[in-house]
């Protein structure tokens, strides 16, 4: 023990000479070592709960592995990927997911912006306005989805009666519209919350100056507020797009994936949990993982989205 410390202090003496590296005192180094030791369990657990399952799914996706036929397990290379990518059910699910993601996120962005502006500007009862806006986000999704389902069921639901008593959830397009509506209702407050944080970054002086220069309300919104809010908008869009792409709970309760309304997550669940086909199911999970990674990559590299706190621009 004492030997290693002397060796290390010797190294520290040497390190002083070039004077380029940051020199740490013995106490500092001990502190840093302790820091690493304290971090290690957390880092290890993170690896165990995130990296390992990902690696294991990739491994499973290269196997023919169906719990129903345990004796037929074998390595099949990329066969599962060929099967999934040539399946009409998969592509239908991909299109359903993409359409739902794009439509719901666009509507959420517009409504969320409006809500954020309202919440930002209210002078009276600010607390009440903000709280009531956030209520849908506070309700458990499955519970909310069940109330939507009953509301749309002819015979028991007021919305179904309002629409003439047609069973809307039994046809593809109307069912998708209902799912999107439930999604929008549920997550618009989240979007509004993120956007409101962005609105707080817009200095009032700038708006006053623009008004003094004769900019109309719309011009102030598009030329001053929006550019300044861009980082916040992009972060909100990124979060929501990633979330929407993995939609499951609303769909599971509302349609259960019938009438071709399965999303990719729903299809994966059906193959993995219901069908017990670990190979095909894992292949789908890996494909979803890749899709999510691509979406994140596009947002970060192409649009320059930055995670909150990671950019220096925020520290004005």
């Amino acid at each position, binding site marked *: 023990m004492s030997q290693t410390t002397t060796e290390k202090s010797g190294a520290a003496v040497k390190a002083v000479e070039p004077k380029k590296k940051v020199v740490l005192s013995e106490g500092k180094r001990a502190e840093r070592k302790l820091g690493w030791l304290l971090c290690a369990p957390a880092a290890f657990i993170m690896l165990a709960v995130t990296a390992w399952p990902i690696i294991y799914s990739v491994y499973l996706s290269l196997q023919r592995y169906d719990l*129903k036929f345990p004796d037929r397990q074998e390595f099949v290379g990329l066969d599962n990927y060929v099967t999934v990518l040539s399946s009409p059910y998969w592509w239908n699910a991909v299109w359903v997911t993409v359409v739902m993601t794009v439509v719901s996120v666009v509507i959420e962005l517009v409504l969320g912006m409006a809500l954020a502006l309202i919440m930002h500007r209210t002078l009276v009862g600010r607390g009440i306005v903000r709280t009531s806006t956030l209520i849908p986000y506070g309700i458990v999704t499955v519970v909310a989805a069940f109330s939507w389902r009953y509301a749309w069921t002819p015979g028991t639901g007021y919305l179904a009666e309002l629409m003439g008593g047609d069973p809307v959830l039994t046809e593809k397009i109307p069912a998708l519209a209902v799912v999107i509506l439930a999604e929008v209702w549920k997550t618009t407050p989240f979007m509004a919350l993120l956007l409101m944080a962005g609105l707080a970054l817009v200095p009032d002086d700038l708006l006053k100056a623009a008004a003094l220069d004769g900019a109309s309300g719309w011009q102030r919104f598009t030329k001053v507020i929006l550019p300044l809010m861009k980082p916040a908008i992009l972060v909100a869009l990124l979060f929501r797009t990633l979330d929407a792409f993995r939609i499951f709970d609303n769909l599971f309760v509302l349609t259960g994936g019938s009438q071709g309304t399965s999303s990719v997550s729903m299809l994966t669940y059906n193959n993995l949990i219901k069908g017990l086909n670990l190979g095909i199911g894992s292949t789908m999970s890996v494909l979803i993982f890749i899709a999510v990674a691509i979406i994140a990559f596009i947002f970060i590299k192409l649009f320059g989205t930055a995670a909150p706190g990671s950019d220096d621009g925020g520290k004005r």
Partner: protein
Amino acid sequence: MRDVDRSGRSRKPRHRIAAALGAAIVAAPVLVACGSSDGAITINVYKYPQESFQKIVDQCNSKAGGRYDIVYHKLPREADGQREQMVRRLAAEDTSMDVLALDVTWTAELAKAGWIKEFTGSAKSEVEDGTLQTPLDTASYEGKLYGAPDNTNVQLLWYRGDLVPTPPKTWDEMIQMAETLKKDGKPGLIEGQGKQYEGLVVLYNTLVNSAGGKILDENGTKAIVDDGAVKALETLKKFATSDVVDPSFSNAAEDDARLAMEAGKAAFMLNWPYVYAAGAKNADYIKNLKWAPYPSVGSGGSKVTVGGINYAVSSFTEHSDESFDAVMCLRSAESQKYAAINDGVPPTIESVYDDPEMAKPYPMKDAILETLKTASVRPRTPAYQNVSTVISTILSPPASIDPQATADRLRSELQDALDSKGVLP
């Protein structure tokens, strides 16, 4: 220094509380598992919610005389939820499940996966003794017995006695009769299950078997979909496109059909016997509600799809002998009679039908027994879940069936499902 000391001291009890809580959480399931009366072995039975089942369990526990203690765990109400929970725990080799109540269609899957024990020796002969053949078939896979039939079920033809003097023998006759009724301005619709779900598979399986056809081969490894299966598709299409089919047929499950019949819209209905008890409150309706064996497709008799529940013993149980004994008690003639009278589920032991107490709650028992003797089993394959999903997806909606083309599509997608190659919709 004192500060540190103080904070250190103040923290200690908190740690202790946390540790105690943690220990309690870890120990709780263990305590529950062993918490039964006076240290007897606990047999955990997993079954769907059945009203009088706890009484049957209690009776068996008192008969066991302290040798084991059965605990009834209620599974979700829906079949998918039941299967999912059991399968997930079996895949993890959970030793705390002993006896499982399985839908008749799950036997092959769980047997092939090696998750349920085979009934051999005296257990096997005890189960086979006096039990009806078709329910026994549902509990067998590759010539071995994996389950003990608890209750069974078959659909009957229900009709309005005031409108129809003699029940039809075939589908063609039934459609004709309904058309005549409709022409005369009387309620002439026919009710059935055409929604995209297991009920549609049950209907199609009945039609195929009645037409002498096959969906899969005997071993459940090859998709056949022969002429009989095409004939069944023709019948289904003819029915679904006739003007006496209920307009919401393509979205109707059992209860939708029952409610339409009770509302007086229809003259005929194909449904399970529960509709009789369910409609008992409506005196005018029940007075005219008559039953007959299911209509046939051709000239031969009908071969109705059998439903029901079998008990299986988990491969991972730590109390194998006691579990088998518990099964024997839970499905004994006495237990089956109790369940039949109180919960309305048809027994699988033939002698129970002759019991005089059965006559009142089961006026249709002779029709059930007669139907059971010629009943048919759904395809027996470990991939049944996939097979069923493929069939209901392809046949839905029944009105757009194109017999020959639909049969070809069925054959190729079923083969993929059997080879666990395809993607489940």
